[in-house]
């Protein structure tokens, strides 16, 4: 039987993989690492032409569904892993049918939450992970996506200038609607709360969580954090007609949260004395879009915020505040940003993304200046950072598992796992 392939056309080398072999029996030399994580199905990671792919064996109906969902999410600009294709019609050499596979591209420089604590997961790190997850959940809900299984395990995190940006990894239980009902949103929040509590309690039971983090309190806070952000992004407010500055204020508040207001509903009352406004369409990525427009750099939201600040400081320091923004930005890019990024030796480039390196150099410069009581120059800070900091960091370009050996059942750090229904027997 011929293989049937549904794929974006850019990865023809995928055809060379041993599709006639069940994933569980794939030769180790094809694999990047054995899988970890919660999936209910067999998952393997493979490297081809320097890129890493996740390959998941799943019945055809579910493979099709998840492929479409991930494609739809990509189109609506929600951060999610990128679906590459489905390979169906697989058969073993003896003619036994094999389940189709769904292929997704591994997100570079992303980290599973369990890889984010080399020793223990500290309160501020845990808090930032949860914040990133809440932003992701709100963005998914704004796009009409019901997750059905929101958890730290079903998410990948990218460093984002001291914070994190979260990406959806597993859309198996997801559904895309025109708009979500309050019940669907409430279910996702409650489910996230339970899952996060379970995941943090599990870390605590394994001695991997800082004792200052209370998993139950932490998880309970998810709902409150979600409601605050959801309220700010979608809530209505009323004011007198002569307080119209409050519209500008609302826009500014949204911008600070990293969102742009694309459509605002404005209703005046019958007498025309008071106004009620409600955001109808908000788009995430306020700072990253602006940075992309000015410099062509495509980075995470907080990184963009940080880089835009650096750009403003450059404009001030070179006395160019009145100049054309794009010209100054181009200058900053070629004279400040790129020299720092280019100075990273090739063998250190797999450790952090360029924008994150730049952010850390700025942090290091601030730290060195404070310690020495004088203003340390960017070059000096950069050299010190590369030598004293980056060189000692682990590679994060393609982190697949958590910590410890991945292929050992008795590993020091086993991960949460799922049980399929058919094991009810026995």
């Amino acid at each position, binding site marked *: 039987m011929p293989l049937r392939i549904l794929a974006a056309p850019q990865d023809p080398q995928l055809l060379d993989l041993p599709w006639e072999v069940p994933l569980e029996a794939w030769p180790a030399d094809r694999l990047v690492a054995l899988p970890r994580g*919660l999936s*209910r199905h067999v998952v393997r990671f493979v490297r081809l032409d320097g890129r890493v792919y996740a390959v998941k064996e*799943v*019945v055809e*109906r*579910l493979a099709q569904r998840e492929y479409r969902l991930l494609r739809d999410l990509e189109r609506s600009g929600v951060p999610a892993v990128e679906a590459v294709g489905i390979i169906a019609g697989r058969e073993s050499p003896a003619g036994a049918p094999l389940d189709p596979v769904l292929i997704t591209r591994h997100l570079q420089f992303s980290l599973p939450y369990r890889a984010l604590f080399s020793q223990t997961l500290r309160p501020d790190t845990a808090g930032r992970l949860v914040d990133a997850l809440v932003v992701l959940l709100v963005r998914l809900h704004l796009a009409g996506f*019901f997750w*059905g*299984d929101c*958890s730290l*395990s079903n998410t990948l995190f990218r460093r984002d200038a001291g914070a994190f940006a979260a990406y959806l990894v597993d859309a198996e*239980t997801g559904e895309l609607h*025109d*708009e979500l*009902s*309050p*019940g*669907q949103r*409430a*279910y996702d929040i*409650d489910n996230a*709360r*339970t*899952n996060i*509590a*379970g*995941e943090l*309690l*599990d*870390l605590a*039971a*394994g001695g*991997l969580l800082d004792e200052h983090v209370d998993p*139950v309190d932490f*998880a*309970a806070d998810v709902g409150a954090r979600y409601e605050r952000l959801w309220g700010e992004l979608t809530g209505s407010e009323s004011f007198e007609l002569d307080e119209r500055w409050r519209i500008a204020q609302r826009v500014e508040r949204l911008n600070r949260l990293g969102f742009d207001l694309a459509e605002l509903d404005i209703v005046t009352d019958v007498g025309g004395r008071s106004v009620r406004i409600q955001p109808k369409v908000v788009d995430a990525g306020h700072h990253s879009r602006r940075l992309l427009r000015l410099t062509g750099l495509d980075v995470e939201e907080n990184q963009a915020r940080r880089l835009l600040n650096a750009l403003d400081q450059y404009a001030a320091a070179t006395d160019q505040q009145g100049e054309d923004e794009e010209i100054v930005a181009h200058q900053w890019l070629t004279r400040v940003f790129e020299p720092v990024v280019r100075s990273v030796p090739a063998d250190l480039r797999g450790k952090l993304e360029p924008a994150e390196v730049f952010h850390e150099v700025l942090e290091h410069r601030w730290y060195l200046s404070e310690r020495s009581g004088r203003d340390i120059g960017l070059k000096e800070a950069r050299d010190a950072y590369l030598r004293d900091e980056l060189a000692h960091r682990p590679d994060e370009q393609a982190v697949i598992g958590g910590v410890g050996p991945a292929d050992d*059942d008795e590993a020091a750090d*086993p*991960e*949460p*796992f*799922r*049980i*399929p*229904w*058919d*094991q*009810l*027997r*026995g």
Partner: protein
Amino acid sequence: MATVTFDKASRVFPGAERPAVDKLDLDIRDGEFLVLVGPSGCGKSTSLRMLAGLEDVNSGAIRIGDRDVTRVPPKDRDIAMVFQNYALYPHMTVADNMGFALKIAGDSKDEIRRRVADAARLLDLEPYLDRKPKALSGGQRQRVAMGRAIVREPQVFLMDEPLSNLDAKLRVSTRTQIASLQRRLGVTTVYVTHDQVEAMTMGDRVAVLKDGLLQQVDTPLNLYDHPVNAFVAGFIGSPAMNLMSVPVDSGGARIGDYTLPIPRELLARASGNRITVGIRPEAFDLSQREGIPATVDVVEELGADAFVYSSADFDGTHVSLISRHAARTPPGKGSQIRLTVDPAKTHVFDEQTGARLSS
């Protein structure tokens, strides 16, 4: 535990022409295993989600026990959606895996201990409460996952096609396990499936839906023996009931040169001069002299019995028939046969409305 009542509950999706669920009236008894079944788009999943609080109810009401939950958020409904995605946490003991969600809900330590102990007793997990999940068998792990739902002591379990991604063989064995566990727990359960065999084998009662409308709710046997309309007759049963639209005369239904005797008072209830006749495959008999003339296309020998797939041509129409016969003596492929029916085993439906005419 509790009853569940759908009281003229409707769901209309924005922009849709007709309701996804249309004035659903359904009384589910305390402890009952009720299955919602129907073809894709019939409203079965939407009905379940209305009960779960995931879909808004546009009109009517839903009650759990005496409590109106129509506008209550999902987590306050005292229900458990039993999906297959319960995670087990490897560093935590079986007891903690089962009970941690109660901690978030703010239950006291004593209360959590009591509920975990109760659930462990029901699930035969008492000796394992202090172990880690890795030390358990697959079946025990699955029961720990179920335990997560059970410790919440919900009034109702909801299951939405839990077996849909298993292969056929595993589905059969797993459905038995789920049904027997439910009977043991005695918790009112609403279960959604598109598979009528699954519905018939698992449910105390089965509710058949089509186009958002409840067609019939009854025990599996009554659905099989007394389908209220031609849709239910054709949907329930495998292989499906033979359904034929035929003209009537004073003696009964005329199928080619064969007249299937049908009582006069039944024919009088038909709205036109045609009726839909329904015959289960096992209601046919072979005859030498009379019956529906047909040509055998395929014979399936199953050991205990045989299915004969034949075709009949009459009044310019072509009809495919399935009949079940004793094994080892079925007619051969290509042979001409005549199929008779015991009138008592004949189902008669109005040709236009599809409603059942026979009692």
